[in-house]
């Protein structure tokens, strides 16, 4: 059990430190208080969406839709408050429910209708944003609610509120994955769906729930995104799915499913955002940034695939000199 969760925090942590050092050394403004608090705000949205990405990756799936889902959900959120007059707290609940519904749609397509996750969520990536453009003639909705920005920019005990959201949600996810039967089942389904079925787990339902969780995570991301800009727009969230997947993968989640640690996803999200932030501060154009995020995903996946070889080589060197007399038990 330890292995499942402690699946080496060192790698992701080293990656984060390395990136942090590189950016800090090459960029003057990086360590300025303004930039650092901006960084926390930026990380908050990516890391919350990445929780969803991790749950889906753990069952061996992939979710390409959260960026588009966020666009649709910000538009719905903004419209419901501004045009329908729904009170803010109710609107938040509605958006979360709507996000769960979008996730449910993906989940049903993947788990019950057996559409490959890549295809189903690729279709959703296209469709959700399409629907988002159908509202308000495709125009953004501005100035949603006077109290909304405080959700994002407010502070508590000197720290920005989003930091608390992130800590709470990661804590909750960690507990679910480690200490509940449902969490354990997620790892089982990701590790070997056929064996999971023969062990009496409801594989389809578990897969579907993970997509629902991803939808809820996207909805929470959407609320923060809308609060940050006090607006909703069908253009929001472009490329966010990739950042979220990158966060999970850089955090060591295996794309084949069954292996990954939610806390490492948070480290991965920080790594990705710091890279993006460093590139922004050095005025690297967006096009090049996209290429770099792509490269990071490839490198992280390569490390995941080569990991076993690398560690066995290192350990082999180390132990062959030390431990020759120990025999295999069977």
């Amino acid at each position, binding site marked *: 059990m330890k292995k*499942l969760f402690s699946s080496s925090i060192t790698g992701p942590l080293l990656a984060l430190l390395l990136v942090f050092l590189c950016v800090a050394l090459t960029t003057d403004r990086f360590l300025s208080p303004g930039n650092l608090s901006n960084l926390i705000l930026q990380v908050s949205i990516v890391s919350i969406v990445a929780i969803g990405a991790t749950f889906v990756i753990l069952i061996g799936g992939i979710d390409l839709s959260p960026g588009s889902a966020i666009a649709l959900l910000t538009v719905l959120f903004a419209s419901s408050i501004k045009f329908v007059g729904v009170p803010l707290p109710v609107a938040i609940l509605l958006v979360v429910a709507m996000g769960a519904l979008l996730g449910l749609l993906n989940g049903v397509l993947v788990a019950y209708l057996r559409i490959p996750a890549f295809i189903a969520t690729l279709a959703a990536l296209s469709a959700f944003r399409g629907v988002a453009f159908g509202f308000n003639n495709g125009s953004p909705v501005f100035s949603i609610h006077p109290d909304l920005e405080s959700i994002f920019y407010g502070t508590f005990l000197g720290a920005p509120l989003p930091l608390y959201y992130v800590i709470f949600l990661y804590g909750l996810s960690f507990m679910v994955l480690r200490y*509940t039967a449902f969490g354990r089942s997620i790892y089982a389904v990701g590790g070997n769906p*056929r064996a999971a079925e023969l062990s009496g787990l409801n594989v389809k339902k578990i897969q579907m729930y993970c997509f629902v969780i991803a939808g809820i995570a996207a909805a929470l991301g959407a609320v923060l995104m809308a609060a940050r800009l006090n607006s909703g727009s069908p253009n929001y969230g472009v490329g966010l799915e990739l950042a979220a997947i990158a966060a999970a993968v850089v955090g060591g989640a295996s794309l084949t499913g069954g292996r990954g640690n939610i806390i490492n996803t948070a480290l991965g999200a920080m790594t990705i955002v710091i890279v993006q932030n460093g590139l922004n501060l050095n005025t690297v154009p967006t096009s090049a940034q996209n290429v770099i995020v792509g490269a990071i995903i490839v490198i992280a996946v390569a490390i995941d695939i080569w990991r076993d070889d690398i560690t066995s080589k290192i350990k*082999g060197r180390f132990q062959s000199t030390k431990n020759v007399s120990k*025999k*295999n038990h069977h």
Partner: protein
Amino acid sequence: MSNSYNSSVWKLEGITKVFPGVVANNEVSLTLKPGEIHGLLGENGCGKSTLIKTLCGVHQPDHGKILRDGKEVSLTSPFSARNEGIATVFQEFSVVPTLSVAENIFLGVLPKKNGFIDWTKMYSDAKKVLAKINVRIDPEAIVGNLSVGDQQLVEISKAIAQNASLIILDEPTAALGLKEIQQLHRVIKDLKKQNAAIVYISHRLDEVVELVDCITILKDGCVTSDAQMTDIDISSIVNTMVGKVGEHYPKENNTQDEVVLEVRNISTSHGVKDVSFEVLKGEVFGLGGVLGSGRTEIAEALFGVKKLTSGLIKIKGKSVSFSNPQDAIKNNLGYVPENRKFDGLFFNFTGIENTSVADLKNVSKWSILDLQKEREEIRKLITKLKITPESESRFVSLLSGGNQQKIIIARWLFADAEILIFDEPTQGIDVGSKIAVYKLINELTSAGCSVILISSDHDELIAMSDRIGIVSHGTVVDILPPNQLDRVDLVKASTDEKKERIA
């Protein structure tokens, strides 16, 4: 590629290979002569696979030499091993199911004319290769459509097409039926006549003693008995491999009168036709028959994997209907599947998590897991079933086949299963672990559990079952006590089936 099997003598000298925490091969020396079938035996974890992987270029030895006709060769990759004339036929085949037989045989060296594939030549060459081992398979047939046995022969034809001087067969019969095994043995004997050096690995000792010329036995990474020392005799081999074992089949009779499982005329759309039988409390009910006769399909129907189209299942007199394995597990059924790798084990889990997975409710309250309790309860099972204590903290991929199998059995004990379906429970595990599984079956039945035993090892089936249902074409054609049955009858049942198929 070009080294034809012109009588090369292969020698391994002092091969040593160390992995983290274990010396897999320790000073292993072996001589493989042309025209000789050399059996390589030993329990799981004895270092056989490591040695084979060294020979086919997957591992490089830490010390030691590999010599061909006295000249040292270096096998740095599977590709270089192939070029040096070593061909390996693995238990899991490496044929491409979507290609034709001829394409598979010449994969990588397809004959070409003007840069394009010369199909005519390829088919006629393939025919020649197949003729060499007297096999009648259409070179144009798609491999995926062939029987498992024929696929295995295609795999061997690949080795012949490479003109290998050393052919390694690693558990080649694990997936084969009796007829196919006989055919394979004939082919291997043909290869021997053509002067190839052959290494033969199998857990089925009866097969080994029938086929090989000499035997080397490994234990704990070392050669314990070399080709000169080993007698080709099952009981002496078993003694050398595992030490004194007492009885090979320690059968106990624990059958009680109560009927726990009643199967009435069940059918599925997946190959089960009108099957009826009863299983008593404490009984071992065997299901015998050839590969593909429908034994596994019957098991899957009982376990709710495949839905019934008609018929009725009663457990302890109560009618039940399973729409998925969950329902079956709720009614105290357990299923130890044939293929533990694909259907049984979670390689991302340790032994503990692998054991608890079928009954997480047992260690949770309101769905919250009690990890402490989980560890303690399963530790008890690990001790009881004599599973290695390493299984507590290690991923199951690092455990031996026997320990892996016991973990799956432990899973069902943990889930309080009362009717256990064992599908080929001893396939691919060593003699010591086999006996441990038999003893477990005894313990289960003496505790009042019932066992449905599916096995292609007819000696095992006859020795361990209280009654045997003979399966043919997806239905139970006869139910007999084992003392009215011997190997020959089971073989005959399979031959009858062959005739029927032709008719």
